[in-house]
């Protein structure tokens, strides 16, 4: 499974990954019994089992770095922010349920600058193509936006520019125009809620969600008309409430540029981070279930059709012409269908469980 995470530089993508690692890969045991197991290297392996790093380089020119959860979890737990990533990073992990593998994840964290470059013709054509190819080839897209920047500016347009929503809206308008029939699972993740004033957080983040809806309105409008899109919105914090001391400085009054400095003052207790994974996994599995059921229906139709044509005459004909007889082909089809059914039964049990947990915190965009 492949998830693409996008957001402007500094919106909290790396801190989010560190928090996700702390919650699900820390060995603490999540109540849902789901956990993640970071893969050493990644979900790709060389045919002869060597030089995995070289393979990674060749997945894409843009994927220059393989993320290591340990490198980012350790600083967070020492009250320090993880180093910002300057490159597009691949986080590869396995999702497990009671220690049994549910799915392999390739979680691609795009460098923040990619969004600015995309519509300013600073990217080479090849890079733009690769970026769009990654979005298209993803089971889900995670859109990260700094909730402080969403709420700080009174002017909506200014907030859109500063939190990256303007470019993200534009990107999805292009996407919808180019691929109107394609299914899309997306989640708008509102980061850094730990530094928000109480008025934005009260009543289950009602004010923040309404504000974010205004900021991402063009995207949400597309989603409302395109039935193939499934979207949600979720406020998260990588460190939890009352753990951050923020200093804000107005740098240039004319351009309204602010600089911020955040200090972690208590042990991080991430908030809502696992729901992002559960949402994407739950919806993707649901999509797969539909796909799997259709596949099994096709098998059944084919088997029924062949059975109606299977008779002694056909067997004799097959014997004389040295061809495989229908009965054995039907048996093979049945075997494949039963294999698919077994896999389907294995993962479909997780779907409702994952979505139940996710939707306790996530708001569907059309319900805000």
């Amino acid at each position, binding site marked *: 499974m492949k998830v693409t995470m996008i957001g402007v530089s500094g919106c909290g993508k790396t801190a989010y990954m560190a928090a996700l690692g702390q919650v699900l890969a820390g060995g603490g045991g999540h109540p849902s019994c789901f956990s993640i197991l970071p893969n050493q290297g990644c979900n790709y392996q060389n045919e002869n089992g060597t030089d995995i790093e070289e393979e990674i380089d*060749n997945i894409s020119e843009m994927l220059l770095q393989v993320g290591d959860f340990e490198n980012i979890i350790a600083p967070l737990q020492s009250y320090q922010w993880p180093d910002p990533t*300057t*490159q597009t990073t691949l986080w590869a992990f396995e999702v497990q349920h009671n220690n049994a593998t549910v799915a392999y994840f390739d979680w691609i964290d795009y460098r923040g600058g990619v969004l600015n470059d995309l519509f300013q013709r600073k990217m080479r054509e090849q890079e733009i193509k690769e970026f769009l190819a990654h979005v298209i*080839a993803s089971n889900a897209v995670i859109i990260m936006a700094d909730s402080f920047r969403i709420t700080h500016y009174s002017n909506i347009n200014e907030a859109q520019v500063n939190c990256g929503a303007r470019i993200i809206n534009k990107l999805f308008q292009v996407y919808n125009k180019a691929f109107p029939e394609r299914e899309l699972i997306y989640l708008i993740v509102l980061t850094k809620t730990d530094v928000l004033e109480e008025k934005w957080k009260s009543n289950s983040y009602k004010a923040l969600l309404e504000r974010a809806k205004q900021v991402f309105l063009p995207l949400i409008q597309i989603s409302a008309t395109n039935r193939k899109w499934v979207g949600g919105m979720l406020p998260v914090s990588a460190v939890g409430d009352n753990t951050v001391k923020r200093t804000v400085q107005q740098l240039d009054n004319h351009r309204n540029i602010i600089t911020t400095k955040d200090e972690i003052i208590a042990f991080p207790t991430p908030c809502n981070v696992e729901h992002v994974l559960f949402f994407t996994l739950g919806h993707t599995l649901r999509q*797969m279930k539909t796909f799997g059921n259709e596949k099994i229906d096709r098998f059944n139709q084919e088997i029924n059709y062949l059975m109606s044509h299977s008779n002694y005459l056909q067997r004799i004909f097959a014997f004389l012409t040295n061809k495989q007889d229908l009965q054995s082909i039907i048996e093979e089809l049945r075997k494949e269908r039963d294999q698919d059914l077994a896999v389907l039964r294995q993962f479909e049990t997780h779907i409702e469980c994952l979505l139940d947990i996710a939707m306790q915190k996530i708001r569907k965009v059309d319900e805000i």
Partner: protein
Amino acid sequence: MIYYDVLFSRTLSRDYRWLVIPDGCSDSDLELLKKLFNLYDNSKKMFWNSLTLPFYCINTLYWSYLIQCNKTPYTDQHGRPTFGLYGIAVSYRFRRHFWLYLPVLLRYLKTINPWECYDYYDMDDHSKFTSEIHELDMKCCDNDISTFLPSDSTFPTLESIRFNVEGSESIVKLLSNPEIGLCNIAFGASVDMVKDFNFSIAVLASDTSQNCTNIAIDRLKQSVPDHGEIENETDIQHKSPAKKHRKESILDRFDPVLQESTYKKTKDQHTSQSLFMRAIKAIF
């Protein structure tokens, strides 16, 4: 000798990008330098406690680059430290001068603060600057260069050079050796840099630098030919791509995205489709 500035870094609100480049610098060169910066970025913790800065000399088809990677004096909009790659670029026309005056240029490189010439805050609004043209006074260089030559005419050996302050003096003396020709050099290289770049001289910067072995390829003389002698620029830059193979998951069979994406693997001959078609052929 004419040279230009190069600077790759981030500004207040905008991500890492090329800020200053010479006019005529190719995309492949910029990609190569960016790759070097990314490798520095991956291993930058090695340099934090060091009193000396790493430098790299990279020669491509049309340009020679002498660059450093370091932390900048600024933080970004989110209060995070920023890093940069900066240095000078010299056209192939001045390659021989570049090599001759490299020891002087290295001394000069240590004193460069790119942010003195380019305003950090001003650059936030601009996408890319074309470098100003600088001219090196060679007469002054001739006087300077004699100071690097060892008095007893013996030059340091690469094995004796460590990534530290003394090492930075020694490598300058080593490069003054007329026996050494134009080549790619890394003073402060990570293992990944050595793997990915064709360095003829590489002084490793590792946590256990006392035990590390530096790398010198036998043919130090003219290991990078002059312009016109290189048939394919990528020969000195990149490794050839290898095939990739994805781990299979049992869920892959139901992944609609995977069915269409580039990860799609060649399906086994006995898919339901081919089975069904074989059956149809058997009937008719």
